[in-house]
């Protein structure tokens, strides 16, 4: 009998659930929205019922933010959030709303907005526009929109790729939608830091949006297409001997974890080569690389660990590199969700919940009163800037700012 029952397997480990309820204690949504059944009911409990009959699928699962805090808290290793998202993908009927399509199609929106970026930015900041979007599309009018850049990061790289190629060591950069369409400055900061380490940066061969917003907005087939494309593109880089860095914590998690768990896309050939930029930098420094810093750099920094970074377990790398910058006065903010959860917080039905969820974090930021909040996630950045007024910078940008400029 020895070959039987050595270990048990179940989809997303749902059978390992001991019903201890620890996940429910850490779910940010449950704290503010009583309509949400909670991760235990939505996940492992619900799974057994759904296997009995698909009619048991509960549409209230849409309130799950996919923050993964339930998984981080689970002592049994159940992938609670994956169970919930997988159930939504499998059982949710009906096409996604126009609004959800719009919010999730970041590549498309980015391409459309770029040529008219100033106009688009001005328009979306108008109260009139926000009221129309609120009334017509249920996008909450209190939410601020990210600004679009006139020139994409890829365009900027186009002008710089020769000088980058000259570096003896190379790394590929999965920049993601945010850096490309909204905030190429972060991409430039990443290049600066990599160059300071003696590493040149190159683009991947036409990456697409990582697809996280599509996954949670009922567009999983489109997400799968993007995923298959991205994995091919990453494979090409890996075959060329390159490591790939990403600055977005969510893009990193999506490719490494959501692709295989939720979309069934195999990433085994690329997973180990893709890492978050802060981890890359830390590992270089640990191996002996040296960065030169300005003498006059002073910054009071409070670091907020994004939920997806918490799930990756790599917040410690961002923390470490910030701490080692001379002149940085560092505070680690308590682990708490900012509430926006990507496109979630834009939706009228979720806005109030988002703001309530983030309230504790905002309060702590106000108390700490830093010069800048450091955070690796772009949507956290929008949320914190809008809700507290404090500026948010990516740790890579802070690092870039602190570097001695050698001209």
């Amino acid at each position, binding site marked *: 009998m020895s070959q*039987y*029952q050595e270990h048990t397997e179940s989809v997303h480990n749902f059978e*390992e659930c001991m019903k201890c309820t620890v996940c429910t204690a850490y779910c940010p949504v449950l704290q503010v929205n009583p309509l949400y059944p909670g991760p235990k009911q939505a996940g492992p*409990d619900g*799974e*057994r019922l759904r296997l*009995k009959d698909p*009619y048991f699928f509960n549409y209230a699962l849409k309130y799950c933010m996919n923050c993964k805090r339930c998984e981080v808290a689970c002592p*049994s290793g159940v992938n609670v959030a994956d169970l919930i998202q997988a159930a939504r993908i499998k059982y949710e009927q009906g096409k996604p709303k126009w609004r959800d399509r719009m919010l999730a199609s970041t590549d498309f929106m980015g391409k459309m907005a770029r040529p008219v970026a100033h106009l688009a930015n001005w328009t979306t900041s108008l109260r009139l526009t926000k009221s129309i979007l609120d009334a017509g599309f249920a996008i909450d009018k209190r939410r601020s929109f990210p600004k679009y850049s006139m020139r994409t990061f890829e365009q900027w790289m186009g002008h710089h790729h020769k000088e980058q190629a000259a570096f003896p060591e190379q790394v590929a950069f999965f920049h993601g939608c945010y850096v490309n369409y909204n905030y190429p400055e972060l991409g430039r900061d990443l290049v600066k830091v990599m160059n300071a380490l003696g590493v040149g940066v190159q683009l991947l061969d036409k990456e697409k949006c990582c697809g996280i917003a599509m996954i949670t907005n009922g567009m999983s087939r489109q997400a799968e297409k993007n995923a298959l494309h991205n994995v091919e593109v990453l494979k090409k880089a890996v075959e060329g001997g390159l490591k790939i860095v990403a600055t977005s914590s969510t893009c990193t998690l999506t490719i490494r974890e959501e692709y295989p768990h939720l979309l069934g896309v195999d990433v085994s050939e690329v997973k180990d080569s893709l890492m978050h930029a802060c981890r890359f930098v830390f590992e270089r420094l640990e191996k002996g690389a040296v960065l030169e810093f300005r003498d006059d750099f002073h910054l009071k920094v409070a670091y907020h660990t994004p939920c997806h970074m918490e799930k990756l377990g790599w917040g410690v790398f961002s923390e470490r590199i910030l701490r080692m910058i001379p002149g940085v006065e560092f505070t680690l903010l308590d682990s708490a969700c900012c509430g926006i959860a990507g496109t979630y917080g834009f939706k009228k039905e979720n806005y109030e919940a988002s703001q309530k969820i983030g309230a504790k974090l905002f309060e702590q930021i106000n108390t700490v009163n830093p010069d800048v909040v450091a955070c690796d996630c772009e949507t956290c950045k929008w949320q914190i800037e809008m809700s507290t007024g404090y500026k948010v910078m990516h740790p890579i940008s802070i690092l870039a700012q602190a570097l001695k400029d050698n001209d």
Partner: protein
Amino acid sequence: MNPNEFDVIIIGGGITGAGTQRDCAMRGLRTLLIERSDIATGATGRNHGLLHSGARYAVNDAESAEECIRENMILRRIAAHCVSETDGLFITLPEDDLAYQQTFVERCRAAGIGAEIIDPALARRMEPSVNPDLIGAVKVPDGSVDPFRLCAANMLDAKLRGGQVRLYTEVTGFIREGDTIKGVHTRNLQTGETEDYYAPVTVNAAGIWGQRIAEMAGVRIGMFPAKGALLIFAHRVNNVVINRCRKPANADILVPGDTVCIIGTTSTRIPFEECDSVAVTPDEVNLLITEGAKLAPSLSSTRILRAYAGVRPLVSADDDPSGRNISRGIVCLDHESRDGLKGFISITGGKLMTYRLMAEMATDAVCRKLGIDKACETAETPLPGSDERSFEAVAKSIWEAPSTVQKAATFRMGTRASRLKENDRYDDALVCECEEVSVGEINAAIERLDVSNLTDLRRRTRVGMGTCQGEFCACRAAGLLAGSHGCVERERADLADFLTERWKGNFPIGWGDTLREAEYTQWVYKYVLGI
């Protein structure tokens, strides 16, 4: 009219007794059912839950097969909320004889069972968990049935028609006048009170214990207890019943049922003394897992929830006391013609599937004795809660947008779930989170379904049948029961009994996640709750 006088007394609260009570009540008789424990505690509550198509018996026992398929179709109509129409597969594995399949199909068809040979690839699509190495597959109209709900529904129908039920009441002897049974002496096992009941006819529907009952009446039935062991897996691995297409052997049926699936079974002769304390042995566990994995390979790495065993009431076909001819068929004995004892009938043998037919036979015999000429209508009349619509349609007809709790209640209660419409938020609170059982559903069971303790409650509502095996719900349910019958001390003992009963089924498979769960439950009950 003496309140202790009835037209018929039925001994035994399993499916046969309940079905007989219902049939008698439908034909206008005043009925009393006496059961020494709770409903469905004998073989009724300890089997596969398989709604046989009869295919399994087609080759060796054509009569049983024909009975099965007819009753299968009837139960789908009259007990829709207790039955899942899953279909079944009879698979041939490389080590089996594929030639058997042809014989099998022919005999099925001859018995009126719709058997269709299908391509193994189609079988794999129909049921993804099936052993991919299968070389042959036959589709049959198997299904699954919840025996507790079925039993409770029959009893409820009888009660709605004036029938009475005495649970936890033991028959201690017969009231006999000459060669006629006039009634029974009983003792209530909860209060210790004794009571006599009278009826011109008494039906012995006590399963394997029927031998002892018959002896008390002064007649002899040759019965042979045959123990069967089964395993429950923690989730519903398959949606279609999977059988082995070969001569019936051990552990070759995997049945999906509600949120779980069950592999079984074995067959071992045991002495009568062991009937009340059957336990599953490590060898039986090994065998069930090993053979089960041949039907669905994922079972070897699926969490096992419980191990349990039941005792089949097998009867000698003739009066041969050595038992050489053991019948699995229905045995209906009129003791007047057989033994010269008037007013006494025994109905036994058979299977869960054919209970209605057994009840019909017994009731026909009762009516003959009473000189009543009424036809049996149990095959056409739906049981309370049964409805031809899907449970989704029923749920939506009661609540426009049913919540998960309401859906789960409808799945179990059928149209009777409409009682819960009066529920307020307090009643919607969940007691059992694994199986989604609310305070309201439990209160309804306590009110209408003769619940004395947590194990009774478990049988009727599935409280404690989920993966936590009572970890959370037992305590909450105990609180509700204490509130309803008012005795906390009794509920303390009940809680301890319930947990020990759950444990009995857990430790034979006490490794891996089961052991983790057990350790956690120990911690919560001993160190936090202080049981």
